[in-house]
């Protein structure tokens, strides 16, 4: 029976797709960071200017989008740890698959804590 190649670290299958997702989340977070520095800079202008712009973060749509942002940040952060373990840990490359599932479990646990809390803040009384 032909042996199906498991894919190398960054070429094919899970290793490649987490690499792609790491890049996409990174770009998303980068552009949010640019906006977030600019909106925060309004505290130097006037309380009204800052409050009116920050009000947009409290709307239903942006409030739900913040869940996506936090999800992207948590994935990028913990997958970054996985990348570092692949780089520095002797068995990192061997266990890169398993480490992805660990990242996913940590992500699900943290999101399970964040999502209901955020939805309560946005849609709660």
């Amino acid at each position, binding site marked *: 029976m032909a042996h199906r190649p498991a894919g190398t670290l960054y070429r094919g299958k899970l290793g490649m797709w987490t690499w792609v997702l790491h*890049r996409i989340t*990174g*770009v998303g*977070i*980068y552009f949010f*960071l*640019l906006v977030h*520095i*600019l909106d*925060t*800079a309004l*505290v*130097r202008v*006037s*309380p009204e200017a*800052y*409050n009116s712009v*920050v009000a947009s*973060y*409290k709307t239903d749509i942006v*409030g739900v989008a*913040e869940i996506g942002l*936090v999800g992207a*940040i948590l994935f990028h*952060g*913990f997958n*970054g*740890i996985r990348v*570092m373990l692949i*780089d520095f840990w002797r068995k990192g490359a061997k266990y890169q698959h398993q480490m992805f599932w660990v990242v996913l479990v940590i992500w699900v646990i943290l999101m399970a*804590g*964040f999502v209901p*809390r*955020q939805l*309560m*803040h*946005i849609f709660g009384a």
Partner: protein
Amino acid sequence: MAIVIEQPDAPRSRKGAQWEKRAWIFMRISGVILIFLIIGHLLVNLVLPERGVKAIDFAFVAGKWASPFWQVYDGLILWLALIHGTNGMRTLVNDYSEREWLRKALNVTLWVTAAALLLLGTLVITTFDPCIDPNVHNYLPDLVCKG
């Protein structure tokens, strides 16, 4: 247009190699620190307060930046995250831009943007003045405003 792939073992200038190595190391060190700083940032601003994101306004920021701890904390996130993000974008630009002039232009844009926002953000944190709010004494009763 032909794409030229560098020979991986081709000798490169010592200076260039050093720079890339330092950037690589910076990504890892700043990445670890940012995980802690940003999870803390999200907890303190979005999760722990009674009303979460809805509690954020000028008074909330003034309350935090009354303490040097949060000024340093936010300043650290600003510097580490923006340099980390800019260097990550540089990696993507170097990977995907095929025209040399475009690659250079995008990289210059990235670093000019980073320098401008680092300057702006640092000035905002260090020169922030809660006294521009006439109602500041409602939430910072001990604050002394000049004039």
